């Protein structure tokens, strides 16, 4: 079964996560993806490398691609890249703003060579505005976009902490790019027209917080405006980051009652998570836990009233004591039986062998030419008529440069002389 993007050719000039993961998503949908690297290679090759130039992150974020090394700092190298462009449907890049122009890989240059090219670029902050020129990475955008402060993250020394070891804005930006590319392919198929898609990590960070970043004046006058005033006053008075987060944490908040049933608790032999979203879910949990005196779902309960915090704390205490009296397996069985959403807290390192992950075929095996067998998180989706997923590992640096150039019309002599001058190859 061919993939939905079968026959589509993608050239990517990418690094770290946001660009590379977009390439993985397209490769999983059947596109032929070629990763263009400088002779130094994508920097993620060196983050916790376990063999020279090979890291687990690079392998996971570049599987399914072939690799090509071109030195775009040379005019000869740029000429080689430009000779390849007519063969490609899609170009993906996440270099810093200004870099693509400097090395002749910007949209206007490339569309002169292939007019219906689909060009996706993702940067930290976009191509205009006061921060357009700034370097961007996920941790920075977590902080800039409000994700870090919104999550009330404070480290032991009072400094802000990342919300997660994963890179949420990078991944959302990568997925947004893959979405834009697929929609643009559909548009090109209907009209013959190519286009530029541009995304930012900032936009991705905000997309993750849409309800908090939105302004809905009728709602905001009650809860949001007092909060904004408080933050401004504290800032003027010189409050520390930790003090501002504490003030934010302790303000009246409709969400506190919601959180007792949408939160984690210790159990006898580990921990458990409750994930109730609706009053029905909460009733199922109360049934399983035999909790009878919780007024927080009653119509007359005022979540921002004066007694609310004390009531919420009392119910939370009951749930905590109850859950601490049983084991993870016992509680999951009881909560499952009641139909309530609950889960053990698993370890990411155990996930490749988890029975549900195995049943869904979410881990896919590949064989790396240098470092042997591996298993990676597989395609995002299953599709009934078009294959998704890949069996190709991440490319070693420069392993396929010659093959790819030959395939696109370069003779062995031309390749040898380009290698000689340093325009291609590591």
């Amino acid at each position, binding site marked *: 079964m061919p993939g939905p993007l079968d026959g589509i050719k993608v050239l990517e000039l990418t690094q770290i996560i946001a660009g590379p*993961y977009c390439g993985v998503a397209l490769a999983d949908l059947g596109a032929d993806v070629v990763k263009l690297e400088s002779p130094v290679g994508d920097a993620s090759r060196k983050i916790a490398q376990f063999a020279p130039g090979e890291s*687990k992150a690079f392998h996971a974020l570049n599987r399914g691609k072939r690799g090509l090394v071109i030195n775009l700092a040379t005019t000869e190298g740029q000429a080689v890249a430009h000779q390849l462009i007519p063969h490609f449907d899609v170009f993906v890049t996440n270099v810093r703003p200004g870099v693509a122009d400097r090395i002749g890989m910007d949209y206007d240059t490339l569309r002169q060579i292939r007019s219906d090219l689909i060009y996706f670029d993702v940067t930290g902050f976009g191509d205009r505005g006061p921060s357009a020129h700034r*370097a961007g990475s996920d941790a920075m955008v977590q902080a800039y976009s409000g994700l870090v402060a919104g999550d009330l993250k404070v480290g032991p020394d009072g400094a802000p902490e990342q919300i997660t070891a994963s890179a949420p804005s990078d991944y959302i930006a990568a997925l947004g790019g893959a*979405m834009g590319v697929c929609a643009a392919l559909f548009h090109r198929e209907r009209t013959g027209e190519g286009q530029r898609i541009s995304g930012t990590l900032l936009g991705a960070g905000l997309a993750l917080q849409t309800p*908090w*970043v939105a302004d809905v*004046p009728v709602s905001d006058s009650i809860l949001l405006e007092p909060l904004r005033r408080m933050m401004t006053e504290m800032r003027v008075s010189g409050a520390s980051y930790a003090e501002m987060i504490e003030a934010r944490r302790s303000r009246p908040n409709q969400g506190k009652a919601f959180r007792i049933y949408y939160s984690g608790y210790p159990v006898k032999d580990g921990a458990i998570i409750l994930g109730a979203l609706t009053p029905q879910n909460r009733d199922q949990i109360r049934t399983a836990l035999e909790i009878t005196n919780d007024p927080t779902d009653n119509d007359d309960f005022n979540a921002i009233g004066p007694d609310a915090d004390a009531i919420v704390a009392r119910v939370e205490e009951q749930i905590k004591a109850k859950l601490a009296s049983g084991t993870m397996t016992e509680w999951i069985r009881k909560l499952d039986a009641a139909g309530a959403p609950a889960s053990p807290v*698993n370890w990411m390192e155990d996930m490749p062998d988890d029975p549900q992950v195995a049943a869904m075929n979410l881990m896919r095996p590949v064989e790396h030419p240098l470092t042997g067998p591996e298993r990676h*998180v597989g395609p*995002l989706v299953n599709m009934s008529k078009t294959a998704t997923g890949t069996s190709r590992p991440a490319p070693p640096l420069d392993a396929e440069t010659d093959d790819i150039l030959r395939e696109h019309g370069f003779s062995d002599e031309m390749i040898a002389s380009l290698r000689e001058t340093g325009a291609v190859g590591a």
Partner: protein
Amino acid sequence: MPGALDGIKVLEVTQIIAGPMCGVMLSDMGADVIKIESAAGDGMRLLGQFAPGESKGFHVFNRGKRGMVLNLQDPDGQAVVQKLISEMDVFLINARPGVPERLSIDYESLRAHKPDLIYLENTAYGPTGPSAHRAGADIIAQAYSGLMAGDEKVDEHGGPDLITATTPADFVAAFTSTIAICAALFHRERTGEGQKIDTSLLAGALVLQNAFTSRLPVSDAIMLDPILNGLAAVRERGGSYRELLGARGGLRALVGGAFFLYYGGYQTSDGAIMLGCVTPPNRQQVREALGLQPGDDPTDDGDFNALADGSEEIVAHVRAQISERFASDTTENWVAKLDAVGAPASQVNIPEEMIDDPQVQALGIMVDLEHPLTGPEQMVGPPFNMSATPPQAKGAAPPLDGDTNEVLIEYGYSAEEVAALRSSGAVGLPSDS
């Protein structure tokens, strides 16, 4: 300019975030999206409502759609879906497994009326496997997938803590669903063939930990196996969640401690700052801006061994020096100094204030909408631009039952038929509500 999905018609039976957000993105790209709700409405309407049945969450995850109320327990309500589906391109649902079959809106039932339909079903754990039937939510996927323990967050009771107030698994599932629908539209355009797409919160959560969940035996022998053995030992003696985290965290800190010196937050004299360095040149830029001398920080030297005895003390010593420098000046000054050398750094902003941020305004990320019941609102628009087919927010979220009549009439029902369906309770809200 038309959107990339101009003319594409989408029917959705969705709730909370994963399904609704997919509908928003399809609408942003030009699709005509109709949301079907029961008379009780999407559960999201009740989460933090500020007017009856209207919440901020519902408004942001359903903008750009038209809304209708159908009673899908009633065969007459199901018949309405079957009639509408023949003119739709895409059907989108996120319900518990088994629900579509019970309501006769599963793939097989609907493709009988529209053979080239693109049908997307999102569930918590996926359609098969031992957990397929279980209830799910984003926080469940965070816990089940390892995201939560991987982030080593512990709350004040010693229980695991949410990694974030936002819902990462829901969002990734929404984005991947949209990607798959666009790819399926492209495939249909080339071949005429429709299909069924399955996505899950579990797969979404695993994607976010791509690099950690992979198995690479050559690498794992050094880095991962000792962690797994440590976890097994603690579990064996019945250790607590906090102890398990400790067993995992020790080695992780050792391997990654140096990296997080320049990829993490510090206090400044008037607030806080976040560094986001991922390369040695980035880290050198920071050292330069901070005035650290060669020799002050050996962690980027070729011969620094993160696993050797004493490396933890070295990292702690460097951290103390960096903390001290940042504490000596304001956030604004440090950001300016780090910008000047090209290093990635940011102030820590408050989400509710982002709407007025000059960069956000320059990019035009926020869109202005007018809700028929609750008035003007401003929210995050499409997170990317397209030059030929720009995505755009089409309008506010529908009030419950807001467009039922309009949609039915557009799809061939007469005014009399609509009235009859309303009085039998197959469509619309009960008349006493």
